């Protein structure tokens, strides 16, 4: 999004706002969804994020990439939602529904079951992480952000992000091994 477009958005130009929302809605919605794990909340948070961004646009000077800046706002908006809800959503609710398949289709059924179990265990383990370790993992492996981009988005140092990713991976790997060990013995 170039400066002219952003200036038009600032002045409330409906077409410019439409273009901005159209360009970024998918990534922002997915970001909110990955934090809130609730489609309806994610849609609301997406809307609030865009409105908050438009209000804050007068402060944006282009020092960071626009999408990084927008990500920061969406993360903060989602945090507000999490706080309002006063609870953490368990990510695996939908996975508990046997009608929903997350496999790729053509696998050996036993292997597919194992893969689904592993995914379920991982999602559960991600959900069990505290926010400061969970967000970098989601941004890194779901949104494919680089360490540098995560650092900019969350407003912390690259070294801190690396440290948090490392700790989170160690915990996730440990949880996964424990779960697989339990499954093998049952």
């Amino acid at each position: 999004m170039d400066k002219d477009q952003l200036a038009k958005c600032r002045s409330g130009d409906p077409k410019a706002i439409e273009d901005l929302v159209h360009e970024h809605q998918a990534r922002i919605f997915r970001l909110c969804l990955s934090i809130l794990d609730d489609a309806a909340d994610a849609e609301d948070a997406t809307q609030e994020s865009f409105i908050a961004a438009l209000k804050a646009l007068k402060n944006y000077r282009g020092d960071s990439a626009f999408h990084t800046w927008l990500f920061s706002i969406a993360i903060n908006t989602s945090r507000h939602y999490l706080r309002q809800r006063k609870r953490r959503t368990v990510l695996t609710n939908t996975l508990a529904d046997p009608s929903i398949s997350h496999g790729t289709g053509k696998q050996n059924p036993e292997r597919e079951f194992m893969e689904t179990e592993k995914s379920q265990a991982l999602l559960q383990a991600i959900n069990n992480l505290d926010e400061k370790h969970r967000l970098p993992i989601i941004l890194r492996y779901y949104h494919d952000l680089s360490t540098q981009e995560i650092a900019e988005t969350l407003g912390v140092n690259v070294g801190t992000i690396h440290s948090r990713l490392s700790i989170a991976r160690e915990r996730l790997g440990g949880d996964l091994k424990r779960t697989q060990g339990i499954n093998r013995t049952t």
Partner: protein
Amino acid sequence: MAQLSHSQAREWIEQASDGLLEASEQRALEGHLKTCAECRAFAAELAGLEGALAAAMKAEWPQKGLTKASESELIKNVQSGFQPGGFSFPFGGLGILLILILLVLGLFGASQLFPGGAKAEPTATDTPTATSTATSTLVPAVIPSETVAVQILTAIPLQNANCREGNGSVFEIADTLFAGEEYSPIGRGFDNLWVLFEGPSFQTNCWVFLENLTLLINDDPVQIEQVSETLLPFVNYPPTPTPSPTLTFTPEPSETIAPSLPECNDGVDNDNDKYTDLRDPQCRNAQDDDELNR
């Protein structure tokens, strides 16, 4: 080149995965991996975990955005929810404060010029419409222009700065101030360590640690101690929140998950500066959750 230890190699494998390894380190690591089956297994395990993480999350949250209908509704709601061009005071809260000061001084001047007070027109209780003429003519008489060096205080974050609900990392992040952009602080803590702002995105008050900011008066950098209380009043910090459990998932007893300790109390040199926990000068106290940023 000296032999890599296993622990150094593992750290480098993780750094390589996060895109932080220098080219020369990358070459040294590759050399080590050729001869170390244990570290190769570690690298393979890490790659497997990363692949599984990406696959699990991408299956859970599909890689698509809103439907066409939802997008149209979103656009409509965003367009109607954003009202640009409304009157805003210059310099935000500070502008309001300056205008109030001028109004008070104007009224003070009026009372000096009209000692009878009761006979002076307009009175202090008049509506803004009634006082506007008197104020605009009286203010210059009371405050000669050479003594009214209007001071504008602003703050520029050195990097993207978390704006928290209170003075410490135990408080929730309420907003973000972006590096290089200019903001108007509205208060400070009694210890001059944290500065209060109205969050730019959510318009709620929040605190930023001073070390993340440059303060300026009329574009000249100043130390916070040089800033008068009129420009930046002292504001009480909110009470420290009592920690509450954040997990709703209760694991089986055999799967006990270690609670997350604050970085300044976890026995780990989280920022790799050779100082751990409270020995790290960046740690404020044992509750501080960041060894790098205060």
